[in-house]
Structures are given as C-alpha cells and as structure tokens.
C-alpha cells in the first residue's frame, strides 16, 4: 500500500472538508430555492385555475365563459375540456403531452417529451351540461420557472472545480507552513546521521515561536545535548580505561622481553618478574572494578541482605590495612561511638570502607593519623567518617573525585583517582545512602558515608 506523507494527507483532508462544507451549503441553498420556486409555481397554478373556475358560469344549461377570462398567468395556462378531452376554450401549453387523465383537485407532475409539467385539474359537474374539466398547466422545468436558480446551479457546477483547486492549494500551503519546522528537524537529523557530528542542533526554538513542533524541536535539541554529553563521557571513559589497562600491559610486555633477553642474570629476571606480578595485580584489581561498575551500570548487581555490624566492618578494615599504614608510619584509630547493625551487603560495605581507608593511607601524611568514626545522626542514619591529615584535595577537583578515572589537573600523581571512589559512591547509593567529602589542601580530607537504617527493636 502506498502511503502518503502527512503533508499530502493533511492537504487532501483540508480540501475534502472545505469542498464538503461548500457543497452542502450550496446544495441546501439550491434545494430550498428550488422548493420555494416550485411551491410558488404550484400555488400560482392552483390560484390561476381556481380563478378561471370563477369565470365559468352555467346558465340554463348553457356554459357561459366570461369575456375577461384569464387563460394565462405567470406561466400557468388554463384550458377547459369536455369530459372526453375535447378542449372547449383556453390556451394550450406547448409540448404538453396528450391523454393525460383528469384527476380532481390534485397537483401532479407529468413527463412530457423533453421536460416535465405540473398539472392541476378541477371538475365542474352539471346535470345539463355534464362534466366540464378545467385544467391548469405549468412547466415544471426549473429553467422556466426560475432562470435565476437555474443559473445559480450552472455557476456552482462551473465554480466547483475552481473551489476544489483553491481548497487543495490552501491545504497545501497551510500544511507546508505548519510542517516547515519538521523539515528542519529532519534535515538536522540527517546531517547528524551522515556526518556523525553530534554538536549540531536544530535551533528553531530560538526563533521564539511557541508552537508544538517548535517545542518538539526544542526537546530534540535538549535530547541531543544529553546524548552528546553522554557520548563524550563514554568516550573519555573508554579512553581512560584503555590508558589504565594499556600502561600495565606495556610494562608487562617490555619487562618480559627484557627478562627473556637477560635470562642469565638471575637478579634482573627476578626483578622483572616482581614488576610483572605487581602490574598484573594492578590490572586484576582494575578489571575487577571495571566489571563491577559495568554490572552496576546495567543494574545486574544483586545486593545480598545480611545483618552487618558496622563497628566490626571498621575494625576489620583497619586490621587489614595495618601493614600498608605501617609502611608510612600512619596510625589508624577506630572509634565506635555507638554499635550499629543494619541490613546490607556485607562484602560491598566492606569494600566501600576499604576503599576510603586505602585512599586515606595513600594520600595520608607520612607519620600521620587516619581516623574512622562510626556514629548515628539525629535522623537515625549511620555515619561513617574516614579522615586523614594528608595532602587534601584542591577545591576545583572535589566535585570530580567521584568521576571514573578523574585525574586532577597538574597533580604530580600519575595514578589518578581510578575507579575506587566511583565504585564506593555506587555501593553507598545502592544501599540508599549518601557519600560526601570535605577537604583542605595540606590539611587532609574527611569522607562521610551516611547510611539509612532501622534500629532493631530491642
């Protein structure tokens, strides 16, 4: 089935409805006019006939017709007949068919050869004279009754195609105008498709018109904004991920080559192996986090729900980072102000706390102090604070630390933020909580996890 564009369909509908309305109104006008004219002609016929009857008298058995008898009036002709159809007097109407039967007091329409007629008969009965018929006749042809109406019909028939064309043109221009913005939308979409330039915009909403299509265009532009932004973020992420994965791969590759080329030098080989092992651990960790985040993005991580003792989590985390902390002579203190247990995914919560603690040690000051505090706020949320007294985070970077692979500008640290904080943020949010950071350069940072919980009924 061939489908027409909305524009074409709209144009035809418009023309169709227009023509229908015009035709209906003209038709009503004509029918009414026709009826009125015909009714006038009919009443003229009866009046003329009846008046003629008034002029017929029967005196002493003889039919007496007045001299001033009117046989014609306004298109109505009157003829007086004997009962056998012999005309006695009067004016016959041309082309009126012969042998039309008489019928008393009834207006009928009879067909002649080329046109039709109205006929009206009246009977005069007299014992002496017998039956006398007075017949009134008039043309039933509208052209004869009312040439004006006939002309109107003709004109209308001539005007109809012209009106049709006008209606089509009107429909065409109206729909073209209405759909002009749509064309721009299509062109922009086509351009974006052809050149994959996501920075293009339709932009017609800036012209200030507030119609529906302009609104659609505006929404499209907004959508393109966010698509472009997501696309850029995605690209940056892939770029960063590839950097983070390629660098250790490069080290592993070159170290392996070097070790193979120096097999007799046991010390060199051993060192190369240690480096390869370290880089492999780094990659494993990164891949693990990447996969975790990818699963989280797809909503495929299912939280297991157990009763988790947060105080215990902090203690465990502190214990497992002891050696790391000792290497920088950092002292870790755990302060559980209130025992809190909540329903959560133990492994994930541990991971979140571990990430924060490991960052605190990594960015902490040599011989410094890291503290972990568990408390409860007024709203009944569990609060975990992890604070260090290390290098801190510059104000311009603090909003970006949650971004994947965010790298502070000009920071001497190659590693960047990696994925740890992005992952931690996701874990906290998956538990319905919040995470925030306050920091001052040179003084240290405090990361706060806020987790909602219902206190176990005691």
């Amino acid at each position, binding site marked *: 089935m061939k489908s027409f564009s909305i524009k074409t369909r709209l144009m035809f509908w418009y023309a169709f409805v227009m023509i229908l309305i015009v035709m209906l109104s003209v038709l009503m006008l004509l029918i009414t006019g026709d009826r009125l004219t015909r009714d006038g002609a009919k009443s003229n016929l009866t009046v003329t006939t009846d008046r003629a009857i008034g002029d017929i008298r029967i005196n002493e058995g003889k039919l007496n017709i007045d001299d001033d008898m009117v046989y014609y009036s306004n298109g109505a002709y009157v003829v007086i007949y004997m009962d056998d159809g012999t005309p006695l007097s009067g004016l016959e109407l041309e082309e009126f068919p012969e042998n039309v039967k008489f019928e008393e007091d009834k207006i009928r329409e009879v067909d002649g050869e080329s046109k039709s007629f109205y006929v009206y008969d009246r009977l005069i009965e007299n014992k002496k004279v017998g039956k006398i018929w007075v017949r009134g006749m008039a043309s039933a042809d509208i052209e004869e009754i009312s040439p004006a109406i006939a002309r109107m019909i003709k004109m209308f028939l001539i005007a109809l195609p012209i009106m049709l064309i006008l209606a089509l043109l009107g429909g065409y221009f109206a729909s073209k105008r209405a759909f002009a913005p749509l064309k721009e939308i299509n062109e922009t979409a086509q351009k974006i498709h052809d050149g994959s330039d996501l920075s293009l915009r339709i932009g017609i909403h800036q012209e200030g018109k507030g119609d529906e299509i302009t609104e659609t265009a505006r929404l499209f532009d907004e959508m393109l904004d966010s698509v472009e932004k997501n696309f850029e973020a995605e690209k940056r992420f892939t770029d960063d991920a590839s950097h983070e994965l390629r*660098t250790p791969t490069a080290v592993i590759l*070159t170290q392996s080559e*070097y070790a193979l080329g120096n097999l007799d030098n046991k010390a060199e080989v051993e060192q190369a192996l240690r480096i390869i092992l370290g880089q492999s651990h780094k990659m494993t960790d990164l891949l693990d986090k990447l996969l975790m985040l990818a699963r989280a993005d797809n909503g495929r991580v299912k939280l297991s729900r157990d009763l988790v003792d947060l105080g215990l989590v902090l203690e465990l985390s502190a214990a497992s980072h002891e050696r790391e902390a000792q290497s920088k002579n950092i002292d870790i203190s755990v302060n559980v102000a209130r025992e809190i247990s909540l329903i959560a995914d133990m492994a994930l919560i541990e991971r979140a706390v571990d990430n924060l603690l490991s960052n605190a040690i990594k960015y902490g000051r040599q011989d410094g102090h890291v503290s972990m505090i568990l408390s409860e706020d007024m709203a009944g949320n569990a609060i975990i604070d992890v604070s260090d007294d290390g290098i801190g985070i510059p104000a311009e970077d603090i909003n970006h630390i949650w971004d994947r692979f965010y790298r502070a500008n*000009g920071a001497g640290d190659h590693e960047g933020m990696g994925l740890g904080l992005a992952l931690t943020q996701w874990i906290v949010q998956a538990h319905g909580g919040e995470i925030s950071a306050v920091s001052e350069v040179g003084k240290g940072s405090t990361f706060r996890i806020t987790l909602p919980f219902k206190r176990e009924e005691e």
Partner: protein
Amino acid sequence: MRILVVEDERNLNNVLRKQLEGQGYSVDSCLDGKEAKEYMEMTEYDVIVLDIMLPGMSGMELLKWARDNDLNSQIIMLTARDSIEDRVKGLDQGADDYMTKPFAFEELLARIRMLTRKKSGNKTNVYKIADLKVDVAKMKVTRGEKEIMLTSREFSLLHYMITNKGVVLSRPQIEEHIFNYDYEGASNMVDVYIRYLRKKIDDDFEVKLIHTVRGKGYVLKEI
C-alpha cells in the same frame, strides 16, 4: 646516538632505558615533564621517546615547546590512549612518530633506527663509507671482508660519526651524543674512544677514514 626517555611509569621507564643501553645507545631518562624540559634544554638528543600523559608538563606541551624552540631531535610520542585525536594532534604538532602502548621493544628500536636514518638521509639500516659498512640493526661492522668487533660505546661513537659523515664533529658534540649524564669519565674520554676506534677500523687498512681536524674535532670521511 643519544636518547631521552620520558615516561612516568617507573617500571616502563627503567626497562626501556636498560634495553636501549643494551643496544649501544646512551640514554637519559626522566619521570616527569618539567624535568624532561630541563634535559632537553641542556642537550640536543638524537631521539626523544616521549609519553603523552605526564605529570608536571604533558608530552604534548613539551612537543610544542620543542618545536617552537627549533629543537632538532626526532620525537617519538608514546600513548596508552585509544583516541585518534591524540595521534593526529601529536603528528600535527611535529612529532616524528607515534606509538601506542603496549608495543614490542623491537618495534620501538626499528622506529628509532628509521628516524635516525631519515635524519642522515640513509635509506637502509646499513651505512657505508669507502669499504666500511655499519649495519645498525644487527650492530655489525665490516671493513672489506673483515668483520670488526666493537664495544657498545665504540659502536655508538661510530654510529654517530657515520650518520654525520663528512661533518666535522667537535669533542663536546661527540661527548654529548655518546655519553649520558650518568657517565663519569675523564674529560678526554672522546679522544680515548677515538683512539680505540681508529685502532680497530683504520690501523690495518690503507685508506684512513677517521681524520683529526686541528682545533675543531674529528670527521669521518674518505681521503
């Protein structure tokens, strides 16, 4: 040939340096952009292996600085990123070559040889003068039919001289190109190595190739 390796991943930096030194290059290396700039200001390196993502000053900034200051070093950019924009931008700003991590060390070597060759106008890895042939890929030197064994430092000196054949090279110039900053030798080390080299490639042959230009330095040429 003197090479600067600028790479902030310490493990990669170390191994590149060791590998290049094993190939007879004299290598300096540094871990960040600012330090690299200082090295580049002090020495005209034949080749610089430059990572793009560096702390302090990015590889791209360094590249721009080098080209703005008409440094003649051949620069090979290293990147771990995927995006083609980096590559285009790097080459546009005057990088001579571009490599994506991870790469095989052999490939890096091949590119370094290609770049030094390009600079000297030689079309293959084999440099010739009279009947002396120096194959820099195989580190093989022959004169006539006789193969000559050189130490890596001697080879490095010969490599430098043969890529600049016919050009008079001053002692400081030679020193700069064959010794890195870690080398602590006597001040007349260039003369010492020239003497070693002469012994091996000139002494047994009629046509001498290494000539002393009084007051200026040394030149490798026929006649």
